[in-house]
């Protein structure tokens, strides 16, 4: 790989300019988000609240954008997203299972960081076993793979509900608090950890990007080019698991509300439309920025202009669902 890395052609200017433009857009949107309508009241307090929420949106956006690109490269398909395949439902099931085995008090008394790291580690393990077997051999029957993922997600959700009903009502309140989507939920203790983990995972993905480019050529080609395919699948799925866990831990399972399953799809659709390059070096940052932009700008429009908090997820599900159906009808999903 290192030999190949030495002779890679430099990236052309347009994609780099695109990423720069997206970054500027995000900066502008963030500034508007932070400072608009700021009256002379308790500025410090308002700014801190907004900054935490902004940080959560950017982290989650980047997490979903990058994890979806990575996942699609592993699956060799442009229509799969981690949450269509039941990734965040699995995370919620894991969390419910932990609450029901440790009890609410035990669960709350574990330090935030330890708990989070344990969850991420378990999640990586499960994701590798489950999705590695599902996707590792290269997906020949893509329809069956998607269907399996959808049904698995459904099963995980039912299992979490079942577990949730079996435990003590007080403990169930903890589960509910842990599994409701809310961008305001991210707090000052979890956000820095989450953002750092997310940044680390994104950097690792960028580091892997030459190999991801090779992996995207398909299993057979990649193997004949000397890529060790199976370890690469596992490490990519590991990164996906980290990113999904971070996003879900920060704001709750967006998939349960409907939005995230198609959010990743919209993001990668736009990314591939704008970037016109197969290089992950450029795809990954572009996807992260596009997702963050959509979340920040969309949330701003819905929250400030329309006075509604939760409508964004609904709109994303509607638009994303129609987009997916369009792809299906055009025969783009095979």
């Amino acid at each position, binding site marked *: 790989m290192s030999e190949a890395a030495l002779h890679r052609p430099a990236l052309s200017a347009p994609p780099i300019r695109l990423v720069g433009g997206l970054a500027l857009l995000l900066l502008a949107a963030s500034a508007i988000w932070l400072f608009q309508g700021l009256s002379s009241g308790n500025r410090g307090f308002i700014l801190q609240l907004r900054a935490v929420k902004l940080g959560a949106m950017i982290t989650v956006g980047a997490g979903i954008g990058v994890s979806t690109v990575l996942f699609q490269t592993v699956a060799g398909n442009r229509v799969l997203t981690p949450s269509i395949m039941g990734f965040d439902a699995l995370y919620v099931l894991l969390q419910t299972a932990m609450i029901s085995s440790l009890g609410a008090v035990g669960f709350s008394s574990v330090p935030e960081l330890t708990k989070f790291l344990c969850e991420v580690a378990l999640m990586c393990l499960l994701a590798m076993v489950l999705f590695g077997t599902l996707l590792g051999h290269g997906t020949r*029957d*893509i*329809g*069956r793979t*998607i*269907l*399996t993922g*959808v*049904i*698995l997600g*459904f*099963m995980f*959700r*039912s*299992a979490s*509900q*079942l577990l949730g*009903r*079996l435990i003590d009502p007080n403990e169930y309140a903890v589960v509910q608090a842990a599994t409701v989507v809310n961008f305001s939920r991210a707090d000052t203790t979890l956000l820095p950890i989450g953002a750092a983990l997310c940044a680390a995972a994104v950097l690792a993905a960028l580091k892997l990007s030459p190999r991801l480019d090779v992996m995207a050529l398909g299993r057979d080609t990649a193997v004949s080019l000397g890529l060790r395919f199976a370890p690469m699948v596992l490490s990519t799925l590991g990164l996906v698991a980290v990113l999904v866990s971070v996003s879900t831990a920060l704001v709750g399972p967006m998939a349960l509300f*409907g939005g995230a*399953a198609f959010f990743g799809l919209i993001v990668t659709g736009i990314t591939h439309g704008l970037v016109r390059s197969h290089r992950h070096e450029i795809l990954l940052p572009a996807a992260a920025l596009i997702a963050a932009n959509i979340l920040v700008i969309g949330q701003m429009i819905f929250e400030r202009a329309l006075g*509604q908090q*939760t*409508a964004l997820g*609904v*709109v994303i*599900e*509607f638009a994303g*669902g*129609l987009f*997916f*159906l369009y792809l*299906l*009808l055009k*025969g783009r*999903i*095979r």
Partner: protein
Amino acid sequence: MTHPFGVTLAALVPLTLASLMTGAASVDIFSALDDPWAMLVLMESRLPRTLAVLLTGAALSVAGMLLQALVRNRFVGPDTIGTAESAALGLLAVTLIAPATPIWGKILISSLCAMAGTALFVALIRRLPPREIMLVPISGIILSGVIGSVVVYIAWQADLMQYISTWLMLGEFSGVIAGRYEMLWFAAAAAALAWFAADRFAILSLGEEVATGLGLGTRGIMRFGLAVVAVVSAMVVTTVGMIPFIGLVVPNIVSRIMGDNLRQSLPMVAAAGAALLLSCDLVGRLIRYPFEIPVGTVMGFVGAGIFLYLLYRRPARV
């Protein structure tokens, strides 16, 4: 070998008895004739609930079987193609536009909407690339998500989230008492009507060209099938909420055992659906007695498991 239909019917008897005996109030149903209190519990709560479960299980399974024959795909059910969400959309619309409409009017409009939604799905899958069997159920699931998001959006605007949550959430029977479930008899009657047209559905499932070649007017029978599926779904959604997977897995299992002769297999589908749903309801009631777990949750877990098994174990033919 004993006939599977007989076995299923025999299994229904103890299940029904168990269902009548299970509940938070401890009464001896065998002495109900002498004990007015036990009689009251039995007639007002236990019997209606048990009947509601039996009717729902049977009707949804038959509707699923018809649907699978209509679209010639084994991996769809009334709950995965947007029928329930369309019914909810119709109910929501009539509630907002004409709140004074009597209940039968609401149900009628809801059924019409469910039929339109189901027809939309049928129109949609005709445009799919041919030979992509698995894309059919996926389109259905996505379509139901899209319609569902419209329902949620409107309800959110109109502050009716609580009102609709019972329809879109998983179904449960804990609220069923006498007077609250009788609509389900219509659902069962609609499903029973399908038996008279069973042969036509079986022919239709051979494909439109073959069916027309055999002299069958496909449009009429198609519309009839859609109507049955829509009426059943609308009734179930409005009385107990949609129950996942039952209309999907039961027809699959039965047709593996009995083949595709619908006139023979429809009664078996109905009995097996009733038995499976009643078992799940009992599990939901007993697992954390005296508290209840909605049957939809139990069925979601069990049904998803059976579905995955079918997805990987079925021979390639669909």
